[in-house]
C-alpha cells in the first residue's frame, strides 16, 4: 500500500515536499519502470565510443541489455542483446569490433545490422527462423542529438528534439567546445550506490550541498590558490556570482554559475583553453562563447542523464535503479577534440580530484545519499523531505532547489498523472536567436 500523494506543492506558503515513500516503495519502482523508463528517452552512448565501422559497446539501458554499434556501412545501431532463439546474449564482450554476432548457445549468427544470417540445422525447421524472426530487435525509437545517442521503448513518445526542448542548448554548450567536437575518454567509472536513484538526481543538480559536503574540496582549492565554485565575484551573461537554477519542460533542469579559475594550470594549458575560446568566439560570437567557457553548468535530462560541465572537466553520468535502495551508476569524462596531450592530462588530473568513486568529492556525496536512505527507515514517523529552498524567489540561485522541483513535478506527472504548474520561466544564458542563426 502506498500513499497516493507524493508531492506537496504549496505555492501559498512556498513549501515543496516529497513523500519519502517515493524512495523506498517497491510499488513506486514498478511504476517508474512502466511510466518513466519504458516511455522516456534514455541515454545509450556517444558516437565517439564507436568511432569505426563494426565497433561496438555493450551495456544495459533501462534494464535491457543492448549492443551500441556501427554496422558495416558505418550506421549507428542499438540492438537488443538477446538471441531470438532462447534469449542468451549474442555479444558478451564489453567492447570491440565485430561484423557478426554469434550466439554461443546454439550458434545462431546475426549481422551487426541485426539480420539473422545463419541458423545451424536450418533444414530442420519447416518455417525458416530467418524468415519468421528477421533479426535482432531494436528499441522502438533510436535517435541522436549532437552525437549523444538515445533510445525510447515507447513507439508513441514524442521525438527526441521535441522531448529535449530548450534543454538541448546545454548539450550544445558542451558539444561546441571544439570545432572538432567532443569525445568520451576511455575508462569508465562504474559503481553502486546503496540509495534510491532519485537521490542521485537531486545531488547531481544540487548547489546547496557543495559547501558542506565538499568542505574539504573547497579548502583544498583555496589552499592551491583557486576560487571554489559559486564564490566568485563576476556576473557572466546575466548569471550572478551566486548562480541560478532554471527549469525546462519535460523535467529537465540546470543550475549554472560563473566558472572559476583553473587550479594549477600551466601556461600551455591556459593557452589551449584560450585557443578553444577564441575559436568559439569566431564561430558563434562572444555571447555564446561566454556562456560556454564562462559558466559552469550541472544539467539533468529527465530521467537520469546528468551532464556536468565545469571549468576543470566535463562529466556525463547515467544511472538506473536496481532496487528502491540500490542504484548502478556509470560515469564518463568528455574532452574537446583537437587538444594536446598536456591538456588531456591536466583535465584528467583535475577532474579526478573531484569526481569518481576514488575522488575527493564523489565519495562524500555517496555517503550523504546512503545516510539519507538509512534515515528513510523512520519514514513512518518522518514522512516527508523538504525541497523548498528558493521557492517564491524571482531568480532562484544555484544553491536553491528550483531545478529539483522541476524534475519532481515531471516525475509526479508521469507517476500520478497530476499536473503541477511550473514555477517560473526557463533561462538560456545566451542569445538564442543569434546562436540558432
Amino acid at each position: 500500500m502506498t500513499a497516493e500523494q507524493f508531492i506537496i506543492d504549496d505555492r501559498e506558503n512556498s513549501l515543496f515536499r516529497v513523500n519519502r515513500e517515493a524512495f523506498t516503495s517497491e510499488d513506486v519502482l514498478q511504476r517508474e519502470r512502466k511510466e518513466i523508463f519504458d516511455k522516456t528517452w534514455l541515454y545509450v552512448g556517444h558516437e565517439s565510443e564507436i568511432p569505426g565501422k563494426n565497433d561496438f559497446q555493450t551495456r544495459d539501458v533501462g534494464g535491457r541489455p543492448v549492443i551500441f554499434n556501427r554496422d558495416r556501412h558505418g550506421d549507428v545501431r542499438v540492438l537488443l542483446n538477446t538471441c531470438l532463439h532462447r534469449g542468451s546474449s549474442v555479444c558478451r564482450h564489453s567492447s570491440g569490433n565485430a561484423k557478426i554476432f554469434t550466439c554461443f548457445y546454439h550458434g545462431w549468427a546475426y549481422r551487426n545490422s541485426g539480420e539473422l544470417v545463419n541458423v545451424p540445422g536450418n533444414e530442420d525447421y519447416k518455417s525458416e527462423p530467418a524468415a519468421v524472426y528477421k533479426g535482432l530487435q531494436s528499441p522502438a525509437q533510436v535517435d541522436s542529438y549532437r552525437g549523444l545517442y538515445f533510445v525510447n521503448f515507447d513507439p508513441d513518445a514524442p521525438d527526441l528534439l521535441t522531448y529535449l526542448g530548450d534543454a538541448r542548448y546545454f548539450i550544445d554548450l558542451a558539444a561546441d567546445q571544439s570545432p572538432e567536437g567532443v569525445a568520451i575518454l576511455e575508462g569508465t567509472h562504474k559503481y553502486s550506490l546503496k540509495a534510491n536513484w532519485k537521490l542521485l538526481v537531486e545531488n547531481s543538480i544540487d548547489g546547496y550541498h557543495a559547501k558542506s559536503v565538499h568542505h574539504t574540496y573547497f579548502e583544498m582549492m583555496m589552499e592551491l590558490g583557486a576560487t571554489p565554485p559559486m564564490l566568485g565575484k563576476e556576473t557572466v551573461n546575466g548569471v550572478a556570482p551566486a548562480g541560478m537554477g532554471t527549469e525546462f519542460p519535460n523535467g529537465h533542469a540546470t543550475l549554472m554559475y560563473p566558472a572559476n579559475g583553473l587550479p594549477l594550470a600551466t601556461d600551455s594549458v591556459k593557452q589551449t583553453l584560450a585557443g578553444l575560446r577564441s575559436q568559439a568566439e569566431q564561430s558563434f560570437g562572444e555571447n555564446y562563447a561566454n556562456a560556454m567557457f564562462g559558466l559552469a553548468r550541472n544539467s539533468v535530462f529527465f530521467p537520469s542523464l546528468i551532464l556536468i560541465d565545469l571549468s576543470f572537466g566535463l562529466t556525463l553520468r547515467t544511472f538506473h535503479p536496481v532496487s528502491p535502495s540500490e542504484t548502478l551508476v556509470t560515469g564518463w569524462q568528455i574532452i574537446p577534440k583537437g587538444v594536446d596531450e598536456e591538456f588531456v592530462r591536466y583535465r584528467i588530473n583535475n577532474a579526478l580530484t573531484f569526481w569518481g568513486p576514488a575522488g575527493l568529492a564523489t565519495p562524500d556525496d555517496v555517503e550523504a545519499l546512503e545516510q539519507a536512505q538509512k534515515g528513510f527507515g523512520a519514514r513512518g514517523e518522518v514522512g516527508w523531505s523538504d525541497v523548498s529552498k528558493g521557492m517564491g524567489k524571482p531568480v532562484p540561485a544555484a544553491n536553491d532547489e528550483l531545478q529539483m522541483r522541476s524534475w519532481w513535478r515531471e516525475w509526479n506527472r508521469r507517476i500520478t498523472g497530476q499536473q503541477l504548474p511550473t514555477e517560473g520561466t526557463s533561462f538560456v544564458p545566451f542569445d538564442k536567436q543569434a546562436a540558432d542563426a
Partner: protein
Amino acid sequence: MTSVSETPTITTRNAVEEFLFHEAGLIDEWRLEEWLDLFTLDCTYEVPATDRPDADPGLTWSLIHDGRTMLEQRVIRLKKPEAHAEFPHSQTIRIVGNVRILTQNNESISVTANFIINRAKAGKFDTYVGRYDYDLTPHGSSFLIRRKRAVLAHDMLDPQGKISFII
C-alpha cells in the same frame, strides 16, 4: 641471457616484504602522514579504471592519478572530520602477498604483489582485491616509493561503491 652472477642482487624479497608490510600497517592504522613519508617527491599513486587496467591512468578516465601534491591533499583531507565518507574512519585490514621482485638495479626495484583488503564501516563490509605494481628506490637501509599502482581485479565497484580510504 645473463647469468645470475653478472646481475648483482640489490635487495631480497624479505627486505621488500618487510617494507610492504610496514606500509600496509601504516595505512591500516591510519598513520597516513608517516605513510606519505614513504614516497619520493616525484611520486605517483595510481589506480586505473576497472575496464582499462593496463592503460595510462593519466590519459584515461581512471580512478586515481595523484602526483605528490594531490597525494598530500588526499592525506590532508582524510585527517579532517569533514571527510564525510571516512569519518569516522572505516576499519581496513589488508593482506599483501605473492610478493615478487621483477627487476632490480641501483636506482630502481620493481615489485609486484597481490592485495586483498577488507573494509568495514556502519554495517557495510566490502572486499577489494587486485595487484600492486611498485617502483621502489633504495633509501638508506630501506626504500622509498616512486610509483605505487593498484590494479583492481573488479568489473566495477559494486557492491563497494567507492574507494574513500587508501588502497
